[in-house]
């Protein structure tokens, strides 16, 4: 994907079609301070999404679980933050081994070999590694929303460590490393629709089905403890998403502006669509509905940001809200407990965006794709691209579902994953952490 992105930026700049990947690093390339500054900014913006997610999820959980739920996001910062530097980057962006199943480059352990490397996109490889690292951190944190309020913290930590190495890194390698098989197939995933959102959404669903519902679900009402915090959280996510999407071109040029605009348009359309649906369906507009619409739009545009013009991104944003709204209705009908709708929003909107982008590609993207296909001696058609996108989505779903199922079974057996009924009733904050959130409500 990075290679194709580079191709587009060259095409747009009037350059020739280059088949060299920007990851082909050389020590002689000089650093472009403009691009590097934007990539550093993007990296920090994506980092901001993690406390944003903690607030979003924390506000949606019940009073007795707010600390435990927010810790799920922050724990990912600590655990994946260490793993990514140690081995995660080598597994995702090293040369393909085991038949391309995963990357490996022992020089990339602890990022040793990139100490003085500058990528062809004129960005120090450290910046790229840190930018990608933030994606690796947020993916398992998103998944936590599906199993919130009933998972043991120790088991969760072991689960996301294994998940990051065995689910995230391989999928990231397939889709984003220049020698990944989905990348070579031409699957478009601009900023992580499959790698981040589908993988975490599906894995969350599998883990939620494995753990079973929370005590009392669905009979007992489980109200959000702090919607104000949820709204601030979704606001931070929206802000951070500009780093997520507009940074994913590893550039600071026309492509960045295109991705930036598509992100804004899709998020706003998603929010507007959701409150319109609520207005007609419930006769009331809710803040959580607006927040869900923002997220649906943002998730749907993630795989598509650099390749879809504003109108297409608005169609994707609107469609995402409709489909996610239906998915949440289906959830209550089917009765499974995806506590904070990690699958209902991230999984569903991610799938919609990754498939739907095929029909709204901007002309220059079509040109780039068809000449890339022609270079391989193949014809290109929209239907064929849809087939490639479906393959990418299908493989991500199947792989993350199967491996996550194995992981949750093993972690439950050897570490313990599900909270007992008594601990759930007491709440995670009390039974796991010995703290309580919202202490300010008590005179103390």
């Amino acid at each position, binding site marked *: 994907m990075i290679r194709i992105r580079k191709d587009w930026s060259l095409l747009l700049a009037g350059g020739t079609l280059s088949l060299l990947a920007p990851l082909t690093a050389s020590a002689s390339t000089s650093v472009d301070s403009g691009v590097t500054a934007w990539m550093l900014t993007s990296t920090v913006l994506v980092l901001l999404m993690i406390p944003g997610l903690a607030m979003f999820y924390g506000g949606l959980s019940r009073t007795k679980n707010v600390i435990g739920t927010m810790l799920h996001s922050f724990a990912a910062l600590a655990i994946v933050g260490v793993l990514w530097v140690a081995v995660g980057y080598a597994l995702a962006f090293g040369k393909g081994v085991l038949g391309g199943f995963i990357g490996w480059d022992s020089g990339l352990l602890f990022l040793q070999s990139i100490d003085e490397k500058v990528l062809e996109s004129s960005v120090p490889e450290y910046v790229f590694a840190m930018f990608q690292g933030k994606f690796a951190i947020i993916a398992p944190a998103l998944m936590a929303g599906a199993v919130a309020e009933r998972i043991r913290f120790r088991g969760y930590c072991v689960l996301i460590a294994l998940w990051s190495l065995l689910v995230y890194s391989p999928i990231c390698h397939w889709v984003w490393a220049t020698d990944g098989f989905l990348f070579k197939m031409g699957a478009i995933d601009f900023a992580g629709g499959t790698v981040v959102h589908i993988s975490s959404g599906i894995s969350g669903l599998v883990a939620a089905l494995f753990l079973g519902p929370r005590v009392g679900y669905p009979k007992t009402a489980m109200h959000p403890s702090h919607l104000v915090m949820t709204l601030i959280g979704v606001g931070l996510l929206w802000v951070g998403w500009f780093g997520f999407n507009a940074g994913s071109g590893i550039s600071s040029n026309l492509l960045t502006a295109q991705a930036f605009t598509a992100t804004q348009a899709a998020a706003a359309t998603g929010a507007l669509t959701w409150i319109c649906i609520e207005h007609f369906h419930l006769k009331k507009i809710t803040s959580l509905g607006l927040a869900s619409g923002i997220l649906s739009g943002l998730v749907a545009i993630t795989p598509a940001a650099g390749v879809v013009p504003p109108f297409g991104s608005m169609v994707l944003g609107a469609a995402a809200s409709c489909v996610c709204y239906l998915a949440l209705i289906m959830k209550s009908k089917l009765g499974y407990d995806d506590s904070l709708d990690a699958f209902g929003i991230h999984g569903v909107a991610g799938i919609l965006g990754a498939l739907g982008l095929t029909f709204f590609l901007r002309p220059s993207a079509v040109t780039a794709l068809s000449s890339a296909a022609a270079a391989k001696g193949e014809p290109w058609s929209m239907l064929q691209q849809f087939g490639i996108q479906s393959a990418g989505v299908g493989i991500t779903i199947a792989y993350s579902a199967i491996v996550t199922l194995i992981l949750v079974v093993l972690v439950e057996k050897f570490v313990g994953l599900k909270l007992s009924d008594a601990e759930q009733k007491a709440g995670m904050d*009390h039974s796991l952490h010995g703290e309580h959130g919202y202490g300010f409500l*008590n005179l103390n």
Partner: protein
Amino acid sequence: MKLVIAVIRPEKLDDVREALVAAEITRITVTRATGHGQYLGEDLYRGQIHVPDLYPKVRLEIACNDEFVEIIIDAILRGARQNGGKVGDGKILVVPLEQCIRIRTGERGGSAI
């Protein structure tokens, strides 16, 4: 008529409510409270164990007709004890209730409960 007031551990609220619902007692008022009995509990902040002056508790109020008092007390005892009874499980107070008026209809007395 009686007013049953119970001060319990916050983490036992779900258990107490389940026990009350099982005993078909569904009319209840719940408030957050802060207080102190004989209990010396511990909170953990930055690795330091703190013994707070006042503990978060939950206060339940249930107005009932006399014949329900024992049912309610039994249900609360069932739900609120930790491991068969620990210091800090709370208290149940029963006080006489002079009058009860349903605001919607203005009816008074036992039928208004």
